[in-house]
């Protein structure tokens, strides 16, 4: 009895020891999953960050998974609620509301990411990540808008880089070329609400003409006003005065890249694409200031957040990883590899970066940039696209089209915030 009991017990003990040996040896080792979308420079930069982070924290492994942007949103939206997703995830700031509402991401611990620290050290637009006093996510890098110009065209036409909207209009008209029949063959300013213009209109033009595009933390549309009408008249006037031709060469960035546009408003993410363009000499300037000298800009960003599936040691490791991703060092690497702007003021506003020929105008723009809190960005963009098309294709008076657009966008916001 005694003997027969001991043998299986011993066997059990040995196998249990063998089984537990592996976990024992790696007792402090933690593997966390990180997801982002595929963009070569972003993946390269993240590999570098992970390598540095793992070197500093030898017991933590970070595994990165990436998908094409086209289905990134759908796949994260399916995986995260199912608990199959990552511990730390990169999300577009505009998707965050849904993730917070559904409890899919955890607030950042206040002891390591205090609201005071974030407010004083980060550029102000990260405020959009705050809900009830807690921050849910933080970016490594941010993007803003600036005015790209074609140096060769400016030299040919003898034009200075415009600094105000009036100068922009005059310079664009002067830079336009037409064939014998009057068809535009080189455009002054590229425009298209489908590209970045809807941001330029919302957060820049409306504010420059004295308005406030939204109220109640972006829940109420507020541009069906005199300022909104003035901004729209200016925007529509670009076309009627011959400073632009909407839809020229299909896409604004294509027209600029091929050297057939003098001016182009776009985000800092365009820098990488333009750098490799042969025969194109280009420069960047801050967005032109408004009638009374007011400056404004639009900033957007991808944030990193800790999902609700991170618990225990994974959670601890995720917090450490988040700290590294939002550190000055990570931001410098990101700027160098991806070309996106640091989210911390102290990193972005160094003399070197703020006076950089290319990054400078974008970084300076961050100081007065606004971030729209979208309920459904593509639907809200469509509202402005349709607003311009009603005017240009159907001859609707701008003021009327603006009212229709404001009502349509309010309906989108209402149905979103009603739940």
């Amino acid at each position, binding site marked *: 009895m005694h003997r027969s009991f001991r043998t299986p017990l011993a066997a059990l003990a040995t196998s249990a020891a063998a089984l537990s040996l592996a976990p024992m040896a790696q007792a402090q080792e933690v593997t966390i999953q990180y997801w982002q979308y595929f963009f070569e420079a972003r993946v390269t930069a993240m590999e570098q960050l992970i390598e540095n982070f793992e070197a500093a924290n030898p017991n933590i492994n970070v595994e990165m998974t990436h998908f094409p942007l086209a289905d990134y949103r*759908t796949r994260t939206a399916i995986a995260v609620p199912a608990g199959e997703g990552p511990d730390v995830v990169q999300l577009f700031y505009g998707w965050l509301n*849904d993730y917070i509402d559904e409890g899919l991401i955890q607030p950042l611990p206040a002891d390591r990411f205090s609201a005071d620290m974030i407010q004083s050290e980060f550029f102000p637009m990260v405020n959009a990540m705050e809900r009830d006093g807690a921050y849910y996510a933080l970016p490594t890098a941010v993007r803003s808008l600036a005015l790209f110009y074609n140096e060769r065209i400016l030299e040919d036409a003898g034009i200075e880089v415009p600094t105000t909207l009036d100068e922009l209009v005059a310079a664009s008209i002067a830079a336009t070329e037409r064939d014998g029949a009057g068809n535009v063959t080189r455009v002054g300013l590229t425009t298209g609400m489908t590209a970045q213009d809807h941001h330029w209109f919302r957060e820049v033009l409306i504010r420059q003409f004295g308005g406030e595009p939204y109220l109640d933390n972006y829940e109420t549309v507020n541009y069906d006003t005199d300022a909104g009408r003035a901004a729209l008249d200016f925007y529509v006037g670009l076309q009627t005065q011959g400073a632009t031709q909407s839809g020229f060469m299909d896409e604004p960035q294509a027209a600029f890249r091929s050297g057939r546009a003098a001016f182009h408003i776009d985000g800092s993410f365009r820098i990488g694409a333009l750098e490799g363009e042969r025969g194109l000499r280009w420069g960047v300037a801050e967005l032109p200031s408004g009638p009374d000298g007011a400056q404004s800009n639009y900033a957007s960003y991808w944030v990193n957040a800790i999902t609700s599936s991170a618990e225990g040691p994974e959670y601890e490791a995720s917090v450490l990883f988040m700290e590294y991703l939002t550190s000055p060092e990570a931001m410098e690497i990101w700027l160098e590899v991806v070309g996106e702007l640091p989210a911390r003021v102290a990193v972005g506003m160094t003399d070197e970066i703020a006076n950089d020929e290319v990054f400078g105008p974008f970084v300076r723009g961050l100081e007065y940039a606004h971030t729209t809190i979208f309920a459904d960005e*593509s639907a809200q963009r469509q509202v402005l696209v349709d607003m311009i098309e009603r005017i240009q294709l159907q001859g609707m008076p701008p003021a009327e089209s603006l009212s229709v657009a404001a009502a349509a966008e309010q309906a989108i916001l209402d149905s979103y915030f009603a739940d």
Partner: protein
Amino acid sequence: MAVDPSAHDTTKAPNAPRWGLYGRLSVGQKRTIWAWTFLAVPILFYVIIRFYPTGNAMVLSFQDWNLLGARTWTGLDNYTRLFSDPVFWQVFRNTFAYLLLGTPISLVISFVIAYHLDQVRFMHGTIRALYFVPFMTSAVAMAWVWRWFYQDVPIGLFNNLLATVGIPQVRFLNSTTNALPSILAPAIWAGLGFQIIIFMAGLRAIPRTFYEAAKIDGVSTWTVLWEITLPLLRPTIVFIVVLSSIGFLRIFDHVFNMTSANPGGPLNSTKPLVLMIYQSAFSSFDMGYAAAQTVVLFVVLLIVSLIQLRLLKDR
């Protein structure tokens, strides 16, 4: 597979192993079991891959779901919202415009080409292959090439041609009236090759003797066409009409790629139902609303197909 009762006794082997329930079955019953075993594979496939999602989509159309949270019941809300949405009715009209313009135009063009190609001996195979090439080309690539053809001066092929002969530019895609036909044109062109091949097969299947008899009677070419060729092509025509109708009702690739910056635009003038479903689901993440639209599309396709099957029966 039918069970043959006579097989029961005649084929029963005396030394057959008699183990278990299976052994006691007759050959006919075994055959039935095997038949069902093999049939189970496609049935399971259809149930899991087709019917379950279809049923799920129908349930979803009465719910509200953003993919992230829980599904909540909303009753008929999605449908009432859909039927009171002016964009939906615009999209509904667009979908039928694609169908009612696309099907007859492609039918007539492909028949005319097939009819004449049938009589051509010179380089017959090469010409036929040339017509078939667009059908094999990726719709996405084709849509983008046509998108660029349609642009304004200085990059658009058509407008450059017009400009060189001094004709004012035509706004093809950036127009609420021209955009839909402009998108339909490459879609028709892409499908022609297939329809031509089917028509030619149909033409070849008509017995020569009918034509010879007509020739002896001295009947005119038109009469031959109206009295012999077209009536005998009826099954071919119905087949092509059914197939191309379903194709035009589900048009997506061409529209999406030719208007990708402003999907279905300008001002929804080119948006078909499938694109609206796609946008509701994968850009607004309004899954219930998208499911309701899918159910409507399903019903429309069902009705159109039933009408056409009815026509096929009358033969």
